[in-house]
């Protein structure tokens, strides 16, 4: 029997909102909510007319670690635009507007619906000093590069990490991305697509906030790995 035809529909709506509908009864009700629009609309009516709203006296401050763990568990920093604010402060307006253009391009490349692309491991970056290795993986279409590490490294406030591609032909290092942490998902710059191939290397250097001011690595290289060795 359809739940909407059930005489107890109002009682079910009430107990559902109250939280006393439990176990299989609740699951049945939730299925009906999805499948029978009249059940959903009856619940909406109950919600609008019979559920009081909590006020400010209810508020309790959660500890800061809740947000910290959300931020890292959901990789929220991959979804914002840290470059713009950092560049804006230390390089001035001209650089900031360039960054804005870059960001505009970046935001078009990132998958809008948040569907993660299928990734293929391409390199394992090692420090040579015992730090946890960073795994680099490339999406099948070559547009997204993901870095992951067992222990996520976070750049200090006065520095950024910069990821470089050292081309197979021995040419100058090419900047791939400026990062605050080595657990990140970044779009591969258009000029570098198709160049993450066997024989090339990926390296990470420590740079001033916002990345190398010269376009070439200026700080110490902390990790390096050959593409194709995974």
């Amino acid at each position, binding site marked *: 029997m359809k739940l909407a035809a059930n005489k107890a529909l109002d009682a079910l709506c*009430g107990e559902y909102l109250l*939280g006393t509908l*439990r176990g299989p009864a609740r699951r049945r009700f939730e299925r009906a909510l999805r499948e029978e629009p009249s059940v959903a609309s009856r619940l909406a009516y109950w919600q609008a*007319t019979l559920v009081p*709203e*909590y006020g400010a006296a209810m508020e*309790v401050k959660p500890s800061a670690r809740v947000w910290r763990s959300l931020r890292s568990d959901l990789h929220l920093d991959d*979804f914002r635009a840290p470059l713009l604010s950092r560049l804006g402060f230390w390089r001035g307006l001209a650089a900031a507007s360039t960054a804005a253009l870059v960001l505009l391009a970046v935001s078009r490349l990132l998958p809008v619906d948040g569907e993660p692309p299928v990734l293929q491991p391409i390199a394992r970056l090692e420090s040579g000093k015992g730090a946890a290795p960073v795994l680099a993986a490339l999406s099948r279409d070559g547009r997204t590069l993901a870095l992951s590490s067992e222990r996520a490294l976070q750049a200090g406030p006065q520095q950024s990490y910069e990821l470089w591609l050292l081309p197979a032909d021995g040419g100058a290092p090419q900047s791939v991305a400026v990062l605050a942490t080595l657990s990140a998902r970044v779009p591969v710059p258009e000029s570098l697509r198709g160049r993450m191939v066997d024989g090339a290397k990926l390296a990470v250097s420590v740079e001033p906030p916002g990345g190398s001011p010269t376009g070439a690595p200026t700080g110490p290289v902390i990790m390096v790995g050959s593409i194709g060795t995974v």
Partner: protein
Amino acid sequence: MLDDALVRRLLLRTAGRDAEAFERLYELTAPLLMGVALRVTARRELAEEVLHDAFVKVWNGATSYDPLATRPVAWLVAIVRNRAIDLVSSADMARVRQFEDDTDTAIERFFDWAPAAEDTVAQGQMHNWLRRCLGELKAGERQALVLAYMHGLSHGDLAEHLSKPLGTIKSWLRRGLESLRGCVEHCMEPR
């Protein structure tokens, strides 16, 4: 009272994977939602786990929020309550015993009966009616309803807490809900 219009905007931007909107949504609503979770779990670390899980759900599934169907704050509160109720152990009678019995004070203190900024006159009126109708319930029915709602108590928890047979609790809840609806609907009739 939280600004429903602002929360709605932030939820919609969150659905578009806007991390800054999500952070603002968290800053704005986390204290209320933490309070809601804590009233159910009665344990801080468990309440924080509920809060965390609820926001993960919002980030991953905020698209299922229907901006036309529900008030956004009520929608968030429902997510948190459901998660909290699922997480507490039904065998944890120590949790059940520590809740305050004085539900009449709780009704005045923890609920907001003032009309919200975006309420129409009719919606504002609804708050008044609901408060009045709660007041007209029999004391036991009102107490059972408020305890169940605020603390996520099950039928069994309520029976234990109020030292009444399970059957009495069930009929208090059933009759309480029915009287409340009847009373509010009576108020809504044009005269």
